[in-house]
């Protein structure tokens, strides 16, 4: 084969392992994260309604812009204060 220069960054980045699954929702802190797109709040409100009565400690957080990655401080704050996060995507 001819020696070709790859346009890709072939450096392997180790995949981030998923967080451990919750064994129960009771007493767990679940953050409902809004990305701020239209209809996000309707979606999160419905999720909150479905979680009612299951002993979940629900809190809310939001990204400043759905069109940019969440700032580090938002990620850190949510990670520190949550056992699980439900992120409302879009539209």
């Amino acid at each position, binding site marked *: 084969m001819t020696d*070709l*220069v790859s*346009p*890709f*960054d072939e450096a*392997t980045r180790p995949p981030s*392992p998923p967080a451990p699954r919750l064994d129960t929702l009771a007493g767990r802190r679940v953050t409902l994260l809004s990305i701020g797109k239209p209809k996000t709040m309707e979606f999160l409100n419905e999720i909150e309604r479905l979680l009612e009565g299951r002993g979940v400690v629900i809190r809310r957080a939001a990204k400043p812009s759905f*069109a940019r*990655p969440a700032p580090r401080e938002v990620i850190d704050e949510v990670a520190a204060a949550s056992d699980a996060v439900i992120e409302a995507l879009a539209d």
Partner: protein
Amino acid sequence: MTPSTLIAAGRKVPDFTLPSIRGGSVALTDLLREGPVLLVFVESDCPTSRLTLSRLEPLRGPFAEAGARIVAMHQDPPHVAARVMRAAQARFEALCEAPPYEVSRAWGLESVPTAILVDRDATAREVIVGWDAEDFDRVAARVTPSGGGPPARVTREHPARKPGCGARNTYDAAAPAAGAGEFDELEDLFERGWTDGLPVIPPTRERVDRMLGGADPARSLGPVPPGLGEARLERVAACAVLAGCRPEYFPVVVAAVEAALDPAFNLHGMTNTTHSCGPVLIVNGPVRTAIGMNAGINAMGGWNRANATIGRALRLVIGLTGEGAPGGLDRSTQGQPGKISFCFAENEEASPWEPLSVARGIPPGLGAVTIYTGDAPMTISDHYSREPERIIDTLALAGSAIWSPSVFPIAAQTVFAICPEHAESFRLAGWDRKTVAARIFEASQRPVTSLRRGEQSPILSALPEDMILAKWSSPDEIVLVVVGGEAGRFSSVLPPWVGYGLGSEMVTKPIGPVA
């Protein structure tokens, strides 16, 4: 049910000799001389195959200590197999089989992944179809007797079991063997995925070196969102070669990448959005003529090598180095043809105004590239008006439809591409850039009551009917560029991406020598 053809545990296996991704050929008999071999048949389109390769990598060391080895058996060409191995971070031996997959057929392979542990006496001892963590743990225990330490095991991560896919020998074994014997370098680049769907030029080391022109190949312009691959100059040059650029275009490509990587531009969002916008490049300065760019007839429509390939090179940097390919991290609902390539030069010679780059702070006489998140241009005809006010009305009416007709204001920078004939009408009136932008802004104003059809956002719904709104939140958001041929009173608007500071800001970078 059809009886299985797959070679069973306890049976002797047939020998084979296959090419390795590391070059040369490898025979099974040679492998077995050194110890037992776990052969893992895989193919690149099968997610379970890829998962299995990555999950077997941790067993490579313990197998080696026990005198055994893992060998991937790819139903793919060597370069594809090499890429799959890299992606899986699997560092064991990988062999490749081409159609009509005679080895796979001789072994009765039905699906991938299929793993077969072969003892030194060429007998199949274990056969695992699909991914099954328990089965692989059993094989690991059999091969690597525990010396008191914990046994070698595969990960406990989900999924513990995952079925695979049909093996290629079961569905395209009859495919013409031409692909196996004859190497077509252009088809090879499609197989690698180094393309936007159009043919590309092979980025040979020689071509990439010519593109670099002595610049440091290892220098990085930074990580390219959304995948954050490093934009080493060598990779940018590879994309420029793929796109068809001549080496003299490279400084423009590099400036375009620098502009795209400016955080204000928000390449991450532009790529991930469901909107159709893509990067629009507007080039100013002497470089336009030096490299033969088109600012005249059909300037936004390709058929000029510099225009077409510079824009394409940036798209390839985003889609390949940045892993922002449509369907992957690019989530555009519909897309638009400008996402193949959208690059043109301003027609400074036909413009009554200072170049766009100068209006944006670059000293006169310097080359510069301006990047903008634009949608496909909407052509605006005005052939009857000679009064500049009427042309302004036409531009404002057409411009009021962008994003969504009832959304006022859009609060986003918006490019109007003014044709030379309309520009001449503004010149005769003595109107500069600011005046034209201010008049388009004013002419776009209308009462809320006229916006009651179509989409009603909660904010719009709450506004009083007699309130007057403009399409933009400030005349400064209206950006003018002169482009096109001398004949034809056709200007256009290049609709923007999302406004309100959520999306992207236009960025201008000077074009200089690349070192």
